[in-house]
């Protein structure tokens, strides 16, 4: 392999990206050395097993990936903003829509949700950490290794270019001979292992580590949604694992699973991909429903309407999510009976989802509604998501889908579902739980400005795409002629994309501004919250609960506040905590190099990296570390210090 096959060459945009990657990396290295922060970084972050810090790292990584995926999106909109645009060539456009999709779903939405899960779930159920803290660190570093591996592809070797669904035969070695789709199979595989372990970890945490008295039906709604999501994860992700493995074998070892000769079947990839891919949609949207439930009930100052029906509808959604996958390929050639079956199951999902929408509306009914930033996002979510849902039912009708299939109508639909459903939820959750982690709120006025920019620009960006789709503009086309008449609406969409960019810049600026100027919160409960996480001082001490509270009803903390009763007046005992470990981080690095060498089929270094992976795992299994105890005096002192100013 020559060096110009190794590095991506010939595009000034890519050269600019290379230069900025080198400069930023140098700046980080120099900065860490100059401010003598290497030790701090290693002790406090790289080796941490604290669920709160792991959550913060997930969210930070997700924000960076949001930036990366967002740049891809703006470039796509710029390229299609005018007829016969020459900004990107076809190949570059293919790579960008592929990485945009993969990054936004797997490296932005999922880690953002995992971050919020990590920070909040143990606090909501009265636990001191997740069930397997070190496994949690491994999950994070495997996700991070996968994300970085995927991201370097655009400067080294070339990015995958067969769409985020990587359909065969296009993604096969015959039509995509360069390494791009090897990155796809390996990066997703590595981060997928991490995801699977997160799912296991949270099921055990929620089933086994709830505070005494907290039965399943007394859990906060976000915890319920995460429990159900984790179940979907452990049943859906193995399918992706197998499919990606077969893809790797096809591309790198000459097997014929998804090829078109020797008994292979290209359509089987699409089938397996969506057996995982549809539940995946619910993996990112159910926790979002949980977040909205928490926020709406907090700021309507009412308990959640229809708690039981919320739980049941989530269970029904999780079951149905495994029975609808063929609606992603109605046009592939199966008969009317198959399409009819999957049409009905798909439309059935609208029923439990509708139940949830009505529950939120009834929670708002006669509530004393406070229009805070997180509440604004939640209120905006309801109507916008409903547009996404209704167009979803349109797409669910198999015969009508022959018209919509692979047009911009579909693109508009899933952005109308995923952006309000997931992105608004994680932003709302980010604003809502920010004071719990950092001890101060994000500025409300600046937050609301960003909200209005985002909400209006979102509609300006994506609403025109419905019409473009109905006019016949297909997705993934990198250019069009003037006669098509697609120009004006695409230009309008570009204007919206610029507005969205400004909105997200304002959001990030608000983080910076609030860090410097926003007054610190001394109560630990700035929103007058309902669930247990607000009963603790902010930022939360490393051991979370000095004494684990006893639960007698739903929203225990809310009622304790009403009765003026304290949840933490029991005797403090010494607290058992897990110790930090550098091995998960090392395992992540080893997996990164293993993935990288396999991408290029460099077998000798790949075997060396593989041995490093095995040795790290062996070292972990011989670790005899039972954690440490925080003595009573230290807990008493830190509680006094943290709660000293509390009324």
């Amino acid at each position, binding site marked *: 392999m020559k060096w110009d096959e190794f590095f991506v060459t010939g595009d000034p945009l890519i050269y600019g990206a290379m230069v900025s990657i080198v400069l930023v990396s140098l700046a980080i290295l120099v900065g860490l050395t100059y401010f003598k922060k290497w030790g701090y970084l290693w002790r406090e972050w790289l080796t941490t097993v604290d669920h709160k810090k792991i959550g913060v790292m997930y969210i930070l990584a997700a924000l960076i990936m949001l930036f990366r995926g967002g740049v891809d999106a703006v470039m796509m909109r710029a390229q299609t903003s005018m007829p016969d645009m020459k900004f990107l060539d076809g190949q570059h456009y293919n790579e960008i829509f592929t990485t945009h999709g993969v990054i936004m779903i797997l490296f932005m939405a999922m880690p953002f949700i995992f971050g919020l899960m990590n920070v909040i779930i143990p606090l909501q159920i009265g636990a001191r950490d997740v069930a397997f803290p070190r496994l949690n660190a491994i999950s994070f570093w495997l996700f991070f290794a996968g994300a970085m591996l995927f991201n370097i592809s655009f400067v080294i070797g070339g990015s995958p270019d067969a769409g985020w669904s990587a359909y065969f035969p296009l993604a096969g070695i015959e039509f995509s001979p360069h390494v791009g789709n090897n990155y796809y199979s390996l990066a997703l595989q590595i981060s997928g292992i991490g995801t699977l372990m997160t799912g296991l970890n949270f099921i055990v945490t929620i*089933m086994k580590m709830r505070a005494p008295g907290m039965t399943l039906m007394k859990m906060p709604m976000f915890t319920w949604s995460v429990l159900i999501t984790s*179940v979907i994860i452990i*049943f859906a992700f193995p*399918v992706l694992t197998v499919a990606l493995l077969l893809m790797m074998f096809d591309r790198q070892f000459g097997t014929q699973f998804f090829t078109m000769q020797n008994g292979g*079947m290209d*359509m*089987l990839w699409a*089938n397996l991909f969506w*057996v995982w891919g549809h539940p995946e949609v619910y993996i990112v949207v159910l926790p979002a429903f949980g977040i909205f439930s928490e926020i709406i009930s907090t700021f309507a100052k009412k308990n959640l309407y229809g708690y039981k029906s919320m739980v049941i509808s989530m269970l029904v959604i999780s079951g149905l999510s*495994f*029975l609808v*996958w*063929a609606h992603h390929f109605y046009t592939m*050639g*199966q*008969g*009317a*009976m*198959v399409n009819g*079956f999957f049409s009905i199951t798909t439309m059935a999902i609208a029923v439990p989802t509708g139940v949830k929408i009505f529950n939120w509306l009834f929670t708002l009914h006669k509530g004393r509604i406070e229009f805070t930033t997180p509440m604004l996002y939640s209120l905006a979510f309801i109507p916008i998501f409903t547009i996404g849902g209704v167009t979803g039912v349109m797409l669910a009708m198999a015969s009508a889908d022959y018209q919509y299939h692979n047009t911009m109508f579909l693109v508009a639909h899933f952005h109308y579902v995923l952006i309000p459903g997931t992105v608004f939820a994680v932003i709302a959750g980010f604003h809502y739980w920010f004071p719990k982690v950092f001890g101060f709120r994000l500025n409300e006025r600046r937050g609301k400005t960003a909200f209005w920019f985002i909400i209006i620009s979102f509609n300006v960006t994506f609403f025109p795409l419905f019409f473009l789709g109905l006019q016949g503009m297909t997705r993934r086309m990198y250019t069009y002629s003037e006669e098509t008449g697609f120009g004006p609406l695409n230009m309008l969409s570009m204007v919206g994309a610029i507005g969205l960019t400004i909105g997200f810049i304002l959001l990030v600026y608000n983080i910076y501004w609030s860090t410097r100027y926003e007054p610190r919160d001394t109560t630990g409960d700035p929103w007058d919250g309902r669930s247990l996480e607000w009963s603790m001082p902010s930022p939360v001490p490393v051991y979370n609960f000095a004494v684990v509270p006893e639960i007698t009803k739903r929203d225990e903390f809310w009622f304790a506040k009403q009765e003026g009763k304290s949840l933490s007046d029991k005797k403090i005992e010494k607290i058992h905590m897990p110790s930090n470990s550098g091995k998960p981080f090392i395992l992540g690095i080893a997996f990164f190099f293993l993935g990288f060498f396999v991408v290029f089929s460099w077998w000798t270094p790949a075997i060396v990296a593989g041995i490093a992976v095995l040795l790290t795992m062996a070292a972990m299994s011989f670790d005899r570390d039972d954690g440490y105890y925080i003595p009573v005096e230290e807990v008493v002192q830190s509680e006094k210090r943290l709660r000293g100013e509390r009324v």
Partner: protein
Amino acid sequence: MLKQLFPVKHVVGYVASLVLTLIALVVLMDLPAAVEIGILAVTAILQASLQLVMFMHIGESSEKKSLYINIAFAIFMALVTIFGTLFIFVWGWYA
């Protein structure tokens, strides 16, 4: 003492899983298709049960209810995937 130092169960499980993998490679020889599928099915089921018993500690928990719910759901998912795929590509294929 020796038992603690040498985890017999795990080593036996590990070796057995390697042996089962090697047996599955028999299908590389020219055998009738039915025999090949049979060998793969039998070794796959043995392999899966081996992993569950030797490494995933199935049945070591005192709480049986959640275990059965889990197994039932897993089998349901596997059957849905297999028969759903057959439904799409074989029985319901437009021809």
